[in-house]
């Protein structure tokens, strides 16, 4: 394969199928933000530490900054934009609002997507399990306490995978 040549790919994003032609070096975050206009995916550390760009790739949380767009071919990518159904917030989103689990909001989309992945994997985590799972999502504002409360509250909600989980 010519490394400079753009390659065709198919990807489903928030339930919508896209046929794209991307350069092989394009990252998933560039593809989602610049190509598809999903600006809720936030760019921060660019080295897979902060988690601000967390999206779900076939239910697995990944940092979109260090995944190539081409690696997402044939997968279902879920972003923050696909969570709510119209005016109905996803239970995790609602819990973040109710518990005041955000300040500047820049980490919030990634934090919420990581939470969705956690709760899909483990619907009733303990506080320690939440702290361990969420280590890869940095928040500079809140000090995490209210995020932890929101996550535990959402985990007690029935059906926290939610009607609007983008599937």
């Amino acid at each position, binding site marked *: 394969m010519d490394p400079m040549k753009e390659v065709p790919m198919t990807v489903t994003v928030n339930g919508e199928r896209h046929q794209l032609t991307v350069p092989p070096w394009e990252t998933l975050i560039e593809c989602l933000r610049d190509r598809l206009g999903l600006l809720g995916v936030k760019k921060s550390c660019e080295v897979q530490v902060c988690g601000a760009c967390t999206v779900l790739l076939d239910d697995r949380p990944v940092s979109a900054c260090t995944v190539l767009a081409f690696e997402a071919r044939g997968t279902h990518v879920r972003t923050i934009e696909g969570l709510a159904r119209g005016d109905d917030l996803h239970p995790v989103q609602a819990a973040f609002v109710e518990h005041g689990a*955000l300040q500047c909001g820049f980490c919030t989309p990634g934090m919420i997507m990581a939470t969705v992945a956690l709760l899909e994997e483990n619907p009733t985590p303990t506080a320690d399990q939440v702290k361990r799972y969420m280590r890869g999502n940095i928040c500079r504002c809140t000090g995490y306490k209210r995020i932890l409360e929101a996550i535990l509250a959402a985990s007690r909600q029935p059906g926290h995978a939610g009607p609007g989980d983008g599937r």
Partner: protein
Amino acid sequence: MAAEHLSVVGRSVPRLDAREKVTGEARYVSDLVLPGLVHAKLWRSPVPHARLLGVETSRAASAPGVLAVCTAADLPVARLYYGPAFRDQPILAHEEVRFAGEPVVAAVADTEAHAEAAVGLLEVRYEEQPAATSAELALASGAPLVHPQRERAGRFRDLAGLRPVPGTNVCHHFEYARGDRARAFAEADLVVDEVYRYPALSHHALEPHCAVARLDEDGLTVWTGTQHPFAVRKELAEIFDLPLARVQVVVPLVGGAFGGKCYTKIEPIAAALAARVGRPVRLALSLEESARTVTRHAVTVRLRTAVRRDGTLLARECDAVLDTGAYADIGPRVATKAGYRAPGPYRIPALRIEARCVYTHNVPAGAYRGYGVPQVTWASESQMDVLAERLGLDPLAFRLKNLLKRGEEYVAGDTPMDGDLAEGLQGTAQAVDWGAALGPGRGRGLAVAMKDGGGTHTVSSAVVRIHADGSVSLLAGTVEVGQGAQTVLAQIAAETLGVPFESVVVALPDTSLTPYDHGTSASRSTTVMGLAVQAAARDARLQLCALAADRLGADPAALDVRDGRVVHGAHSLTVAEVVRGHFGFVGGEVTGVGSFVPTTWSGTLGGATVFWETGMGAAEVEVDAETGAVRLRRYVSAADVGQAINPRECAAQDEGAAMQGLGPALFEARVGEAGQLLNPGLIDYRLPTFADLPDRLDTLLVENGDGPGPFGAKGVGESGTFCVAPAVGNALARAVGVRLTELPLTPERVWRALQAARGDGPPP
């Protein structure tokens, strides 16, 4: 706790921006897209100090998509240099580079990738020069002078007293003295003299600096995540020789700031490039570039305290040295504030304080949550525990004996203490079970600190517009950096007007539309902007009552406004009916204006303190003697907020500040070597994560309604960062008997200290 007569003030209403932030619809400057937008990237100096010999731009200029490649000489500006204290910083380095990472050449291209590729094709010739890469080196005799010439910016009243020391790298020397120190030290039963070190830190707001600029015949428009839109406007107006009215600075939501976005940062680069290429230019830094834009000052504090056997403080001497980097930024004010706050909130008859702000060939240091308080508090509150221990006194009792009482003066001429420090500290100690038994390897520590809150001699203005349908626009220049200011200001407006909270919409700062505000810093917005909003709302309410008086057949003074209705006895009209009734159909509105303009001019800082922002902290730690690892198990943070406008958001500010303060206590520091920053990014710069959250993190809000702000409020937001490091250090000392004077308290440092204490190994 909300007073009964209040409807929305004192209630934890949801943030106005919560929904857009959880849905991903919130837009930050880094999300802005404009027609014809082009992108800039920077070539940065790889060395800390060099003479620039020349730049070979031709290969970069002819690369795909490139519109322009600019050095300082290519920028179409009236002034190349800017800065809030001294005009010492060039938009791009000119003839000389003064720190590793300084922007030297800019490339503008159709895409970020093309601009970045062009930067890689630049050839910059330079000749390295000897560098002063620490404050110690910069103060040594024969050190290279970072700035032989300095031009004062003359922008702020409190900076009129800048005192550079000619022929040295000291760009500002703050001094304060009182009392008979010689006698106090001679008569003291105990004197403790120690040097404490606090490292340079990176702000690492998750949204890196980003600015978008457009210049056309109407003037210059800059979208930026700044905390000081009006100060940036002023500097841009000078740089481009434009009237203020032709410079528009627009601030969308900001993805964290913490002082790192105070005053002008990258806006002049974006604006000068936009002027050069005739198209809107976006300059978005990486997080690592942001760490090369501004830092928190590394500070060395020598502190000497004299005390009587009964625990009475007699005298304190402080010599603080701040590494302000290659450009002064707001460093001189940080030095003044660090010095002014160094004695701590105590009654001390004799003082001598010096704080020197020192130019070095490091990344410029500027504002960071607390303006010097965390650095000097590490010294002063560590030393308070050393004094207590040597006197055989309980650290809590020792502090209580010396704390300023309500109404006592801290410094002659300044606002007397406006809160109850003892109440706060006792509550904090109680909340952490001070005095209760603990297992081995565990200890508790306390700290207390304060700052002159609200900013020195600063102005805020606001406009309240009541529309014909009863909805309300609030125009305020306060930046929403995450602190919840929009929500709190809307609560103040709604409460004052007597309309539902939901009817108030808050505009984002836009210097062409929102009235003047000094800036979003110094925990000042709730109090200072809050008073301006309250005044604007009162003005609008008076006008509304005047309009309603005729229709209700009543004296305006007899009218009340509540729940969106103007009420006279059993009769009432909705706000919409009053406005529409006066103007007819839908035309017209009621416009209220309000300002806070300080009138007093007194005190050592040159302006009476608006309120005292006090913070208390109590830590319980567990120390692993085998590894030296310190784990924070419990932390209690207390803040005196006067009256919480939104209690949940007040507590959230304090919690977030405390966890931010935990970083430099245990693991966070910029690591440099010969002027090179070795850990610019997050792989090797360790920030607090979820895993660092203590088992219990509690916040106490002291609410005595005694603040000067609306409804008795004081500011909050910075105080939670003040006490964490000394409280943890004091807890460590009480747990295992070793005391460290340099932050962070890493396992290696603690382990070495433990080894040395046991006599098992080399000293630390």
